[in-house]
């Protein structure tokens, strides 16, 4: 088990190298339009001396491969550099933003878990019923809807139209800035639902198919032959088996949401890591883009490792790191 974890941690190194390398290639001159130094100085004219000073301050005078080596060296020490635009350390900036992203992802995961699993179970237990058809239909639509579009639709309907139609009652706040009359968490409802939407549909579908598969297994008949009630058979014997892949999906999805939140955070102006990266890309603020991506990649890998480890807890057939069976 310990050896397994160590091995997995070592496997992260090439991933970091790969990710940072790709990002460095993207910032090589001529790959993407836009000169970061021009972005820093803005439209105003600037003396060559000042310009030179900025270049040196951010180490942009060095050849790209040198810059890369320096970046990796700093990364090892937990230093993600300084923002071009904001004059703050990247780690400091993300220390502010990360909790917001985590909060949103957590809310989305809770929605995904509860709504997705419940819908999937109902759908499976009442196969071919009206509810099942409803779930199947709505999940098919949901998985093909672009997230940003759904987010805007929610904003228009719940944030604006509902407010107009009901004279200010029953609407949902769109962003933190919208009003002070709501508790803090209320601002999270729409972005969290948006972020959770596609995944919830997937969870419902996986849950349904896993549940149906489990219900058809021989051990279900064994359980029925013991005289257990339908309910005990479904919710004890079938559910535990069916949940294993679903829990894995939800766990990995938590990692995916770190990165996937870029769209949702941008649409809802949610002050998280994703939106910060989105803004920084526009400004060619490379230290923030790289730092943000590195943080997300790191979180995703840690979460995946935790998911894999918890898998062993759920499924007795799986054991990591050798040892006697």
């Amino acid at each position, binding site marked *: 088990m310990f050896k397994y974890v160590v091995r997995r941690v070592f496997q992260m190194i090439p991933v970091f190298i790969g990710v940072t390398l790709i990002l460095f290639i993207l910032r090589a001159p001529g790959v993407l339009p836009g000169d970061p130094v021009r972005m820093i100085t803005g439209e105003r004219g600037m003396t060559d001396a000042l310009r030179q000073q900025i270049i040196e301050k951010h180490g942009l005078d060095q050849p790209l491969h040198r810059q890369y080596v320096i970046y990796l060296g700093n990364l090892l020490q937990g230093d993600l550099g300084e923002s071009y635009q904001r004059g703050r350390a990247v780690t400091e900036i993300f220390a502010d933003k990360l909790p917001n992203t985590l909060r949103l992802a957590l809310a989305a995961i809770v929605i995904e878990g509860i709504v997705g699993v419940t819908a999937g179970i109902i759908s499976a237990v009442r196969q071919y019923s009206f509810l099942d058809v409803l779930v199947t239909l709505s999940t098919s639509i949901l998985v093909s809807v672009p997230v940003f579009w759904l987010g805007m639709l929610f904003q228009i309907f719940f944030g604006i139209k509902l407010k107009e139609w009901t004279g200010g009652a029953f609407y949902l706040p769109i962003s933190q800035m919208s009003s002070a009359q709501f508790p803090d968490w209320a601002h999270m409802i729409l972005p969290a639902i948006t972020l959770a939407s596609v995944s919830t549909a997937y969870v419902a579908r996986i849950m349904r198919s896993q549940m149906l598969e489990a219900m058809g297994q021989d*051990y279900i*008949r064994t359980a029925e032959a013991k005289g257990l009630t339908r309910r005990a058979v479904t919710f004890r014997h079938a559910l535990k088996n069916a949940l294993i892949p679903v829990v894995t999906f939800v766990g990995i999805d938590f990692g995916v949401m770190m990165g996937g939140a870029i769209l949702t955070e941008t649409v809802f102006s949610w002050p998280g890591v994703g939106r910060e990266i989105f803004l920084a890309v526009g400004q060619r603020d490379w230290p923030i883009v790289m730092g943000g991506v590195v943080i997300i990649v790191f979180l995703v890998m840690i979460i995946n490792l935790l998911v894999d480890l918890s898998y062993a807890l759920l499924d*007795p057939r799986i054991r990591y790191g050798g040892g006697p069976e």
Partner: protein
Amino acid sequence: MSALLEVRDLATQFTTRDGIVRAVDGVSFTLDCGETLAIVGESGSGKSVTALSIMRLIQEPQGKVVSGQVLFKGDDILKLSDSKVRAIRGDRIAMIFQDPMTSLNPVFRVGRQIGESLILHKGMSRKEAFERAVELLDMVGIPHPRDRARDYPHQFSGGMRQRAMIAMALACDPDILIADEPTTALDVTIQAQILELMIEMQERTGAAIIMITHDLGVVADMADDVMVMYAGKQVEYGKADGVFYTPRHPYTWGLLDSLPRHDIDEKGALLPITGQPPSLINVPAGCAFHPRCPYAKDVCTTGTPVLTDVGEGHLAACHFSNDPEFQRRASQHPGEVA
């Protein structure tokens, strides 16, 4: 005194895309306390469906018991309320399933799975049920039962899982144990051990056993009664001795001939039944066995034979069951008749 279990004219059908499958069609038998009934027949002849119908475990709505009675101690299981049936299942009638590899739940410990019916039917606490599960595992010959009870099914070998299934079925001291091919998935030495174990258990608890198999050899030393099924129908039924030594149905002859029988003819080539079992959607008219029967006559293609008494409660469903000449020649040299 009425029989422990009396099945009358049981018929079970499945609705499939291709049509209605008459999986069991008019099966009747009785079982007394401590008795062993063997149900034999080829694959697909309706043995498992018969067993599941008795337990009322046929999955509706695809499957349905369309007629018949299953009288357990006088009550018709098919008419009882769901909760009454559940009270019988696992407690009074228990079942060992065909495939030990898939019949245990992979995510629960073996001890817990054995104890489950004790908690349910005997009102035991988890702790008591676990202790009893350990005893049961010990009884079915699993070494280190206390440790093994905490194992998961994947840590058990096939033979051990089948022992665990037997322990599970015996947990509540059932009146009837239905064993659906309890040994087919196991290798030969283990098969013998498992059968030995079941005979031992029966002597200890006095349970009646319904033993399902397609291997007549397996039942020879176990069964009191034998029922032979073909295409969902009962073709021969009676005391084991009668069915074994004076079989009255050509299908039974075929089954017996496909066994290596050293006592009859050392050199004789095996005579397996030729052809395929019929589709249960379009069962052949007349006698369902006639397309494969080496002795079939015109009447066999049109008239459906009924089960008739050929003596001392020995029943057979063949138009010629009571034709003495045919019977004499057939039972002596089955291959040369006709």
